[in-house]
């Protein structure tokens, strides 16, 4: 399943990347791929902008504007003017 992918904000500064592979460990959608000793963004359109890779890259090579892809959170934030945060508690790890 693919979502609207044209606005995805993930970028990598290739010269900062050491190929440590941490991003591959944390990414839940197999966005990264090892290419020899380097790691590259292989499938940017699978990114859900969860922010795990940026937070766990110790070398500051990754950048993504993290957020919950949740319509009701966004609508709420438009009305209240606050940050979109997920108001649910959800189950089984699938949640906004």
């Amino acid at each position, binding site marked *: 399943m693919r979502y609207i992918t044209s606005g995805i904000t993930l970028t990598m500064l290739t010269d900062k990347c050491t190929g440590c592979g941490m991003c591959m460990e944390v990414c839940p959608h197999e966005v990264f791929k090892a290419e020899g000793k380097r790691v590259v963004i292989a499938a940017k359109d699978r990114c859900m902008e969860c922010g795990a890779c940026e937070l766990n890259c110790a070398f500051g090579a990754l950048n993504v504007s993290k957020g919950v892809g949740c*319509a009701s959170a966004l609508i709420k934030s438009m009305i209240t003017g606050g940050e979109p945060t997920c108001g649910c*508690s959800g189950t089984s790890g699938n949640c906004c």
Partner: protein
Amino acid sequence: MADKLSEIKFTLQPAPEPNAGQSDGNSCCCIPQPLEAEWSGGVLQTPAGPVCRVSTELTRKDLWGRFKCRVSSFRDSYTVPPGLYAVGEPGIGPDGGSDIFVSANYKFSFDMLRRELHGMNAWILALDTKGINVWCAAGKGTFGTDELIKRIGAASLAKAAGRGRLILPQLGAPGVNATGVRRATGFRLSYGPVRAKDIPAYIRAGYKADRDMREVKFGVLDRLALSPMEIIPAMKRYPLFALITLLIFGLAPQGIIFKDAISGGLPFLLYGLISVLAGAFLVPVFLPFIPFRSFAVKGWITGAAAFVITARTFAFFPYSGPIGPNILFWADLVFFPMASSYTALQFTGSTTFTCISGVKKELKAALPVYIASAAAAVVLLAIYKLLVWRLL
């Protein structure tokens, strides 16, 4: 059902802050409440104070709680006290070195984890995520670097359990900076698999998760399990919708006419139900098979199809009233697929692949359409009423 609920609530009341520094048996982190819970398996004495041992069997009560989490707001208060727990006979004290699994204090998440640790000797460190699951809490930051560091300190983890491998659920990664935690506490973090059920395989493979274990899935069963939480909130608005519908159709210059309210309003009420069902059940379940990537569009298509099928099946057209069937048809067509679309859009919050940039784009396009459709429906209905009252 109600007494069962209060019973669980009573036994699982969060205990006061874990105070593992005290060695007095009665001030244990988890005494008295969790000890009474069926999932508790006694107390382990550690140099940092007593620690509760949990069973790896889920009781009927646990399963019942799980079910209720799926369908009700019960999940909002289904917690375990944060802190350290033992599974089996883990190594005690600074030289312990058994694996330490980190979890949320949402009992559903906690239960999934302890069940998979059957036969192992390990620790569980439950973070205070305010009773929210790992994935959501990591998004909010409550399952996060700061909380983990704080909890490691509060449980005197190195003293109680030693410096074993700290295994985090991979879905906690959006909240936790592994390097930051290592610098602050000296503990080494590993990200385990996405699903707790892969933990035994992950350990067998030498603490390595393969691609499959690293990937979030979103199969039809996941989607089916999530649909009650879409349907129920949507249905909460239904009584108001029904009331307004009956008022509109019953309203006449002479007052409210019941016969008209029922005969005119009935198709509307049915369409309302159908549009909720289309948006909150059909779209989630058939998600990959409905064309277009946009959830709003998926919802609209499904809603429109469901509307037309219902209208034809029940032969609501032409409406029985003398005037205005066409106007009503257009009002329905404008309104109900839009309602399905809006409901379907809410499902973006439950999926595992929608990104915020996409939802923003989608909203930007959809909101003006929603507002315009709602306005058009109101105008059409008003014209219909005026025709019926012979004022036009």
